[in-house]
């Protein structure tokens, strides 16, 4: 039955593509008060956040696939995937972590600014 369905569907094939978006100036490169620039930077930030969420999902799936493959000795053999997941999670948490539901590109930029300030303070204290 599956082959009959395939034959019916293969008469006129058509394709779908992944939409490519152009890179627009970031929120840090926008002139103050330029709301159009803010809008485009916000849209780009949201797209990047969705991409990062997908990346997180893929890395997590890799770990679970590895665990399924290895079976009882997964703690030993999946060290690379675990390390990768740890790094990716830490990076995601640093960038998008505690912004909350109403997080937008502006709060993310402010978080980055605060992180840089704290880093500089830690460097001065050390």
């Amino acid at each position: 039955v599956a082959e009959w369905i395939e034959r019916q569907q293969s008469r006129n094939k058509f394709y779908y593509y992944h939409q490519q978006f152009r890179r627009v100036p970031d929120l840090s490169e926008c002139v103050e008060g330029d709301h159009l620039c803010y809008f485009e930077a916000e849209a780009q930030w949201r797209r990047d956040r969705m991409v990062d969420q997908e990346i997180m999902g893929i890395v997590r799936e890799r770990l679970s696939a590895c665990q399924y493959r290895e079976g009882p000795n997964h703690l030993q053999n999946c060290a690379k995937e675990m390390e990768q997941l740890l790094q990716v999670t830490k990076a995601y948490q640093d960038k998008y972590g505690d912004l909350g539901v109403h997080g937008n590109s502006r709060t993310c930029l402010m978080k980055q600014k605060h992180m840089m300030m704290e880093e500089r303070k830690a460097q001065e204290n050390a």
Partner: protein
Amino acid sequence: LAAPVRHSSHGKRMFIIKATSFYDSRFLKMLRFYICLTGIPAAIFITYVNIFIGEAELAEIPEGYIPEYWEYYKHPISRWIARYLLDPPEKDYEKSLALLDVEAKKAEMRLMALEARRLMRARGDGPWYHYETPDKNLTDNSMKATPDN
């Protein structure tokens, strides 16, 4: 002579008294009827589309080819809706950007008007904040003519 034969005849016929189920069963019958009235043609149509037309396949964008805006969807029905019923996302985007632009300019204009009001009120050299005062020829200066009053 018909001997009493023991076919299981459900015992004595009883008139079972219970609350009416007429309204409930009528409601459920009407519900099922009206749902199936459009549901079954819709289900048949969607099954036809899924079997005979099939979903799109993911492909890399060929060189030098810009896909139309409806070619970014997988299911043929969503492609049809995007092509014939909805506006292209570029048009939507431009419309929202235009709206944002108008509102931003309005906000800027209002801020500038407030600043102008503040300055004209403070400095008094602008066209605003002119108040009508009575004519100086109407004042009676007779009581100010003699100093010992």
